[in-house]
């Protein structure tokens, strides 16, 4: 019942203490609660915002703008956006069925499979990169065979995507699974009796109802892959235009000048912020249409 939403600014409209205080016994409590919540919010937001703001304050903004014209930066930016987008698509396409199956079906080894999914998050990124090399590199357990067919993965743009998928998929899958679990099975039942197959039900009923969580998970995965550094540089190398994403370009610039690298970081942060905010706005509109 969207109507019942109570606005935070609500009791500000209540009369002063002097007038009708007796009618609203919980008013002081309510005020205290709001003050407390507001304070927590402000403190927490400060904690998160302050480092970001510091980055902006302490770096020369004109230099930031100038570095946008650097072809190295343009290459890295394009590569970052391209690979992160492809990564997010892959994660969503691959992760959605996994999340759904793990949420709704019991099969042998489900708990192990479910926990396995979290492992890439625990591995420090460079270790993840080494693990990927050991699996898909030229000498790797699988890469070894692929290489026999002349198919090398490591140190290519594909490797960037693989590293990002490996590192960011858990964030999507976990949230998607929770969202699927929280969809009432009654809707599924209703759809089935109305002649919808499992697949039709999934796409027309379950997916839209779970969409809020799925979108949020996809944004997390996108953000994580935009910031991915350790696994990428280990598994894909640091080749300008081919595997040098923004985080790698930032690292490389750091060898020469901290300032330049911070400028790049600011560019990455601003552009990602804009992209994510746009995605949110767009999906909120869709979601509103879907939900309200």
């Amino acid at each position, binding site marked *: 019942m969207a109507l019942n939403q109570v606005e935070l600014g609500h009791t500000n409209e209540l009369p002063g203490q002097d007038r009708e205080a007796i009618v609203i016994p919980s008013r002081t409590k309510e005020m205290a609660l709001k003050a407390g919540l507001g304070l927590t919010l402000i403190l927490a937001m400060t904690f998160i915002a302050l480092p970001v703001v510091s980055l902006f304050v302490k770096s020369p903004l004109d230099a930031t703008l100038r570095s946008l014209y650097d072809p190295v930066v343009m290459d890295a930016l394009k590569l970052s956006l391209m690979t992160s987008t492809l990564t997010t698509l892959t994660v969503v396409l691959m992760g959605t069925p996994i999340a759904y199956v793990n949420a709704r079906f019991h099969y042998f080894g489900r708990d192990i499979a479910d926990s396995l999914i979290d492992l890439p998050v625990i591995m420090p990124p460079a270790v993840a990169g080494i693990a990927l090399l050991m699996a898909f590199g030229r000498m790797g357990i699988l890469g070894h065979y692929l290489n026999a067919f002349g198919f090398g993965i490591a140190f290519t743009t594909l490797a960037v995507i693989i590293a990002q998928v490996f590192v960011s998929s858990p964030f999507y899958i976990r949230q998607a699974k929770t969202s699927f679990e929280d969809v009432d099975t009654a*809707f599924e*039942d*209703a759809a*089935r009796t109305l*002649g919808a*197959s*499992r697949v039709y039900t999934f796409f027309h009923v379950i997916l839209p109802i779970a969409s809020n969580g799925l979108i949020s998970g996809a944004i997390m995965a996108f953000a994580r892959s935009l910031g991915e550094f350790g696994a990428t540089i280990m598994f894909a190398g640091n080749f300008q235009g081919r595997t040098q994403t923004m985080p790698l370009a930032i690292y490389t610039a750091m060898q020469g000048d901290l300032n330049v690298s911070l400028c790049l970081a600011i560019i990455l942060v601003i552009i990602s912020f804009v992209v994510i905010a746009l995605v949110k706005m767009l999906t909120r509109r869709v979601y509103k249409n879907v939900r309200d």
Partner: protein
Amino acid sequence: MLEIDVEKQLRDFKLEVKIEVAEGEILMLVGDNGCGKTTLLNLVAGLISPDSGRIALDGRPLYDSAFRISVAPEVRNIGYVFQSYALFPHMSVYDNVAFGLRTRKLSEQEIEFLVKDHLEAAGLWEIRRAKAGSISGGQKQRVALARALIIEPRLLLLDEPLSALDVRKQAAMRRDLREKIHSCGVPSIIVTHDLRDVACIGDRACLIEKGKIALSGEADDVIGWGAIANSDVIKPKDSTV
């Protein structure tokens, strides 16, 4: 013809039911809260599996434990009004009613024609664009009814389908339902707590007690049943309704 002969262990007791419903026959199920009426409908719809037994429609098994047959709910072709409606919250009233037609791959033109027809009959055409979560309780029940009836199912399962309707709609719907079912001739099971429903709609009635059929007979006999005798219901004097 619908044949049911199933067993299912529930939390508090065992459900054991054996009934048959003929083509175009309307079987009214009555019984105390929690006696297993909704569960029985779910078994017939294929949403839960019996422990054992057989359910068959027109001689073909929908479920048969002996042959390990269990037909998926989506191919049973059922019109089911859920007790809690189970409207799709992300869809408009229109899309909820159109859902069953879309799964049957009708053209959008046919769908619009049919949906308009049903929504107008149910007095829902004005709110067709409202999301299913933002309409009143009785409106929801009407949507659920329209959604189940529009697909012209082979079998009707209605779980207290009139309980939230306003007085006028209730009266109209009783008339409509009876006519509709008799004219299309599908077996129907209607759960209700309102003995007027039994008297006005039903051909036959079953009283369920703790999962077993306690009484069964003509719909008009119900008032005489001792099991529900201390009710304050008086059978309508004339059957114009």
